[in-house]
C-alpha cells in the first residue's frame, strides 16, 4: 500500500531537505521503491543534497504543465536502487503549481512507488499547501528550539485543518550533552508542548554537514550517528517497532576514573 508522506516544519533550516534525502535513501535501502518530490519550487535543494543536480532534465513544473511525462522527469539515484527524485523547478515559483496538480501527481507516483516523500518548503503559504495537498501522512520536523517548536505547533494545526491527522514528530539536531546540562529543550519538553507521537530523534552530527556537501546522504555512511537514527526512523515509518537510540552522553575517562575510585 503506497503512501505519500509530506516532510514539513514551518520554520526553515531545521533539516527538512536533509531528512527527506536520508529517509528516502534509508527506505530505499530497506528495499522499498521510493520517490522523493522536491516541492520547494524556485529554491530547489534536494537535488544538491542528493548529488543529482547535473542529471536533471525536466522538473516538477514541466510535469504539472504537461511538457513531459512523469517518468521522464524522475531522476534515478546513482547509489541506491529503487530511489528516484522528482526535482523542483529552479526558474519558476510556488505559484506555478496548484494543490490539485500536486495531488494528482502524488497519486500518479503512488501507483509505482511504495513511498512518496514530499519535501515541503519553509513557511505556511502556498508552497506548503501544495506540498501537503497530496499527502496521506505528515512528518513534522522540529529542532529543540522554542521558535521551531512554536512553528511546528502551527504547522500541525494547519495539517489538521487540511485533514491530515496522521502526523508524527521528528526531532532533529538534538545535542545530548546540552540537554543533560539543561541548556537545551529535551525531548519531553518538546513532546509536552506538541502532544503528538514521536517517530524519530536525530542527534546533531557533523557528518551531516560533510555528507550534505558531498551530495550523499548520511544513511549511506555507517559511522554517522545521525545516519543510524535516520535508518531507525525509516523502519518506524514502515511500521516496525524500533527502540529509540540511546542519547546518553558517553562518559569521559575522568568520570569513569572518579567513579571507580569512589568519588562519585
Amino acid at each position: 500500500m503506497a503512501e505519500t508522506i509530506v516532510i514539513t516544519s514551518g520554520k526553515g533550516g531545521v533539516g527538512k531537505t536533509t531528512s527527506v534525502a536520508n529517509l528516502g535513501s534509508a527506505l530505499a535501502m530497506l528495499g522499498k521503491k521510493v520517490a522523493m518530490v522536491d516541492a520547494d519550487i524556485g529554491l530547489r535543494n534536494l537535488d544538491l543534497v542528493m548529488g543529482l543536480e547535473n542529471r536533471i532534465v525536466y522538473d516538477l513544473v514541466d510535469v504539472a504543465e504537461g511538457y513531459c511525462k512523469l517518468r521522464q522527469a524522475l531522476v534515478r539515484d546513482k547509489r541506491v536502487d529503487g530511489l528516484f527524485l522528482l526535482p523542483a523547478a529552479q526558474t519558476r515559483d510556488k505559484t506555478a503549481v496548484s494543490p490539485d496538480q500536486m495531488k494528482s501527481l502524488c497519486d500518479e507516483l503512488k501507483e509505482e512507488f511504495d513511498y512518496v516523500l514530499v519535501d515541503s518548503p519553509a513557511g505556511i503559504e502556498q508552497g506548503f499547501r501544495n506540498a501537503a495537498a497530496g499527502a496521506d501522512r505528515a512528518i513534522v520536523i522540529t529542532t529543540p528550539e522554542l521558535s521551531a517548536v512554536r512553528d511546528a505547533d502551527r504547522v500541525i494545526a494547519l495539517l489538521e485543518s487540511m485533514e491530515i491527522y496522521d502526523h508524527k514528530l521528528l526531532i532533529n539536531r538534538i545535542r545530548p550533552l546540552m540537554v543533560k546540562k539543561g541548556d537545551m529543550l529535551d525531548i519531553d519538553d518538546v513532546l509536552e508542548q506538541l502532544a503528538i507521537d514521536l517517530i524519530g530523534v536525530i542527534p546533531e552530527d557533523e557528518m551531516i554537514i560533510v555528507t550534505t556537501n558531498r551530495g550523499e546522504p548520511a544513511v549511506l555512511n555507517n559511522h554517522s550517528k545521525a545516519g543510524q537514527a535516520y535508518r531507525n526512523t525509516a523502519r518506524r515509518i514502515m511500521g516496525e517497532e524500533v527502540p529509540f537510540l540511546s542519547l546518553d552522553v558517553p562518559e569521559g575517562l575522568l568520570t569513569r576514573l572518579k567513579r571507580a575510585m569512589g568519588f562519585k
Partner: protein
Amino acid sequence: MFHSQTEYRRRMTGGVGFRGSRDGLLIVLDDTEDFELVLEKLRERLNEAPQFFYGAEVTVDVGKREMSREDLLKMRMILSSEFGLRLLGIIDDHEGERSGGVMPFTGGGALQVNGGSRRKGRKGILTGETPNVTEMIGSMNSRKDEGLRFKGKTILCSGTCHDRMKTEDYAGGTTSVMSPATESAVIDGEDQAEGFGITGRDGFACERDVGGEASEGLRLRKGAPERTQRRQLLPKVEEMRRTLLLKKTLRSGQSVRYNGNVVVFGNVNPGAEVVATGDIIVAGSLKGVAHAGACGDESAIIAAFSLAPTQLRIAGFLARPPEAEVSRRNAAPGCPEMAKVKDGLIVIEACPGSFKEEGKSVWQRL
C-alpha cells in the same frame, strides 16, 4: 483552451473579455465592433481596477480582426503606457488564411506564423495556441513570452512552437520574426533586459530530444534518423541569426531564452539557464545549464572562459561532466574551453588560440 474562444467572444458583454490562463491574463477583444469602440471599452474595463492590472502579463486575442500597425500601436499604448500591463503576445484567428503560414498541430493546437509580407509595416507576429498538453511530450515549450523591443521596432512573439512543425512553416516564421538579421541587440541594464527576454522566452521552437526516462540516463536512443530530420527544420537559421549580448551575471533561477546566439559578459551561476538556438559564449564562468542549438542545430557550440557547467545540451544531446570531473566545477581549468558535438558525443576542447595543450575530454551522456 481556445476552442470556445469564438463563442466566448460572442457572449462577452461590451466587446472586451478577460480570462485567466496559464501564461497570465488573456484579453479577448470583440472582432466585429469598430476597433476604436473596443479600445474605449478596454480602457473602461481596465479603469475599473487599475491596481489589479498594473504589471500583469497579458496576451491579447484579437480574433478575426485585421490589425493595422496603427491599431497595434494604439492598443499597446493603452496596455503598456496607460495601465502598465506587459504585453506578451497577440493571438489572432484567421482561419481562411491558414494556407500560407499556419498549420494545425497533430495535437489539436495550432501555430500561426503570419509573415511580414501579408501585413506590411509589422515585423511579424508569431502567435500560437498552446498545444494539447499530452502532445507536448518530447518538445519544449516556450512558457512565457515577452514582447520584444528591437531597435525601436516591435517584434511580438507569443505562443509555443512545436517540434513537429514542417520546415517551410517555421522557416517562414523565422524570416519575419528574425529580420533584420544583421542587427544585434545589446542589453546592459536590468530595466532594458526586462523587456527583452531574460526569464522570458522568445518564441522559438526548441526541443529536448530525449526519449525514455531521465532516470535511465536519457540515452539518446530515440534514434538518429529523427534527429537529422529535425535538424532540417531550420535550414536558414545560420544566416539570419541574431546575437543577444548580455552584460550581467545570471544568478540561480534566472534564465535566458533567445532565438539566436547568446553572449554573456558575466558568469552563469549554478541554477541559471541559457537556452539559445545558436551558439552560447560566456565571457566568464559557466556553471549553470547551457543549451545551444536548441532547435536542433548540432553545429552549435558552447564556449566559456571557464567551462564548468552543471549540464550541457547541444541540440538533442545532453551531457554532464564525468563524476571525476565534478570536482573541477570548483577548480575549472584556467583557459577558455569549447563544447561541441562530435560523432554523437559532446566533446570539450580548448578554444582555438588558447594556451591549453591539446587534448579533449568526452562528457558522459545523460
